[in-house]
């Protein structure tokens, strides 16, 4: 390996790493607010890529069916809960948030079925379609067990991943897809070709990290989320509903997943089940950040991307093995630097 190859690999790795950064931040965001390790995160990113590809080929995206199923189930659960509580006045609101709003993009999609859409419109439509998935899942799966232990939530989350990836196969089929490049631009820097695609990925990741930071620092919603993450009971006493904060966290997480899906679609061939492994790699980055620190998480994810890129060059079949083996030294280091949480009351 010479310096030029190393530079190319690094560039490549940084681009992949930037996508992991987005996903890892989503992980940390959802975990810190809801205590849920949201394993299906990668699945949502993969569904985004598949939706985008379907729109590009003027096919009807399977996402519509998926969102419809989720929205109907969530609405049914919400209505059942309302009827049991006897507060009928809440019905219109519930119908709007759980049925109308999630199905709006899907309905539009049915109307414009088969029509040619420009690239920006395709991306907007895809993100709008994907956004409701995570909050709906939260309502259906996690809300009924919001008080369960982290471990139980994790088991549910893993089971959920398998349910979703099974549904992905039903709605999207087994074919792998790769979307058109967002740009053909390319530039030579000191003899190293840098694709516009990579630059775009890095810039997009940076912008969304900045937006996330601004959201947390300067909006009341962001502060409410921070408060919930630090102390659920305290936040509740201040009038912040943890369930609501959870929905916002899932919505944001969904957006991060959708964006990473859009970015990864032109550079990786995506299958209905590709999301899991991509998500786990991002998760390695999140562990480097200890599941709490945003800057460390970002640095860790970039590192994972670069490592993967070099590992793929050295020995392609073992690149996953290399990345996951990185966990051993990372955890070893973490086990001496992280405070051990006292998990009381889990009897």
């Amino acid at each position: 390996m010479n310096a030029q190859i190393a530079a190319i690999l690094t560039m490549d790795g940084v681009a992949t790493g930037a996508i992991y950064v987005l996903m890892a931040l989503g992980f940390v965001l959802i975990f810190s607010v809801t205590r849920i390790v949201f394993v299906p995160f990668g699945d949502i990113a993969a569904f985004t890529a598949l939706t985008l590809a379907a729109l590009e080929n003027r096919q009807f995206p399977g996402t519509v069916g998926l969102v419809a199923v989720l929205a109907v189930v969530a609405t049914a659960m919400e209505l059942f809960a309302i009827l049991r509580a006897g507060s009928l006045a809440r019905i219109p609101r519930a119908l709007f948030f759980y049925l109308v709003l999630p199905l709006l993009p899907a309905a539009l999609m049915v109307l414009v079925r088969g029509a040619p859409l420009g690239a920006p419109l395709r991306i907007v439509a895809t993100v709008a379609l994907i956004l409701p998935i995570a909050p709906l899942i939260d309502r259906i799966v996690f809300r009924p067990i919001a008080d369960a232990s982290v471990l139980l939530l994790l088991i549910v989350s893993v089971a959920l991943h398998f349910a979703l990836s099974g549904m992905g196969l039903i709605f999207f089929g087994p074919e792998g897809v790769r979307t058109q490049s967002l740009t053909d631009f390319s530039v030579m820097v000191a003899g190293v070709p840098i694709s516009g695609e990579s630059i775009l990925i890095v810039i997009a990741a940076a912008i969304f990290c900045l937006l996330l930071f601004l959201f947390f620092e300067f909006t009341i919603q962001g502060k409410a989320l921070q408060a919930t993450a630090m102390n659920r009971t305290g936040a509740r006493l201040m009038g912040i509903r943890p369930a609501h904060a959870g929905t916002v966290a899932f919505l944001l997480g969904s957006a991060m997943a959708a964006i990473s899906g859009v970015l990864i679609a032109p550079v990786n061939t995506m299958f209905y089940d590709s999301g899991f492994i991509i998500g786990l790699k991002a998760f390695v980055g999140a562990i480097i950040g200890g599941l709490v620190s945003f800057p460390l998480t970002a640095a860790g994810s970039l590192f994972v991307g670069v490592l993967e890129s070099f590992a793929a060059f050295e020995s392609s079949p073992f690149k996953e093995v290399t990345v996951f083996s990185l966990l051993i030294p990372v955890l070893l280091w973490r086990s001496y630097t992280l405070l051990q949480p006292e998990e009381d009351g889990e009897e």
Partner: protein
Amino acid sequence: MSRRQTRIVAALAVLMLAAAPAFLGVFSITLLNYIGIYALVALGLVLMTGIGGMVSFGQASFVGIAAYSTAWTSAVMGYSPWLGLLLALIMTGLVAALIGAVTLRLGGHFLSLSTIAWGLAIYFSFGNIDGLGNYNGIASIPPISIGAHALSDSVDIYYLIWGVLLAAMLGTHNLLNSRVGRAIRALRGGNALVESLGINAFQVRLVTFVIAALMAAVAGWLYAHMTRFISPTPFDVHVSIEYLMMALVGGSGQLLGAVVGAALITLMKNDIQDILPLLAPSASGRLEIVVFSVLFILFLQRARDGIVPYVARWLPQPRPEIPGKAEPLPRRRQPPAGAPLLQVHAAVRRFGGLVAVNEVSFEVRAGEILGLIGPNGAGKSTMFNLITGALPPSAGKIVFAGRDITRAAPRHIARSGVARTFQHVKLRPRMSLLDNVLLGLYPRTSAGFFASALRLDRAEERRARHEAMRQLERVGLAARPFELAGNLPLGNQRILEIARALAADPILLVLDEPAAGLRRQEKLALAELLRALRADGLTILLVEHDMDFVMNLVDRIVVMDFGCKISEGAPQTVRSDPRVQEAYLGGVA
């Protein structure tokens, strides 16, 4: 149900299993073989997840490591499958020990998530190593032979599988009712209590994790030699979650749950594979995983306890035997009365800019009750944590019985003879009173994992149970030793904590606000008990709020306010000290 009746039921079950091949066809026996193998993996998960509270999503990869080890040994290298078993156990044990060593110190979800990642890494390794047949797998694995008899028939290996499973269940059952088993059961609910009892929580976790992995290893060995062909697929992560499902559906924390869960899931899978094509002919293979996952999520939402505890409610409960007389355990020598026992020299503890304990010095003499009092926020609890090792001091020195314990870990301090109770009672509510007290006896006994599983610990166990019973009598809770600790009223829970502390045969008993939340009668009874303990030669350090309680009980008092010691002496002297009056009453007008 008495012990004898339990044994008769168990013997009948074994007889039925032994007779099964005479009545069932080959297909049913093959199904039973799979159930037995899966149940063995699930049994390990019941031990580590249901009882020890650690979740593994990588159990299938442990099965895989073992299966590949033995397949390589027997099919590729041509050695005996028994040598394969040895290699399987060594490889799986090593991998599990390494994974456990790096993750078990961290919070529970780190371990679980790492197991997913390693599960995948190991799965990819199987598929990419040329010597292991890549994704095509290894074929023509020889059957296991006992002597000259090859277990190639499904009925032959049926006896081996179920024999191994029953032996593993018996061993686990013995283990759980032993010194080590109680420590495993205590792991759930946090380290603070476990470490304060002199138990090395990390070590107990690690060994439990490795044992569960070894059970998976034996299952993998049986699997490889039963199916005679292996490929990476049955060791994928989604199979791991099926194992977890078996352990939880059957009833986490129930040994029988492993078998019930394995049977239920295996039979259900079998049926779903028959039914789904009828419902949705085109998508049956895809629907299977969806149906399974959705059912599992519903189960976790609605009925977390599982099947066995639900059924067990309707069955007669086993009646445990009251511990009989046994030779008492050896006791520590108490130091002569009046000798300095605990010395605190200028202890300081800062939290950032706040000085919670500021240059506090005092000593506790053998045979006395010393009260540490002060208004809210005086730093009493911090002082308490410094003494018991829950927090390290920022500066200063603490000496106990001539030994510097300034920076010692809680379990080392506990082992040197300091027993404590907690301000917020820490018991294991789903363990019996007797078992809770037996936890306190951990450092005084020595039986290990193997001795416990093989019931070689019975003599020691009898002595320990006798001693625990004696401590329950001493505090007045001996009437119902098999009641669950969670069912006691708060006052009695505090008393039970004291019994547990006494079981450790301490030199110094440190009590953190023992009278908090007690009614008057209960306080009087507690004071009476503490006086009796002092009369037995025990030294007691008491952190307390309740003035009446302290004044009538203790020999000397140390008063703290805003992190500093402001007074020390006999109760009467302290009571008339103007600084103390000012601290409590905000200045005497």
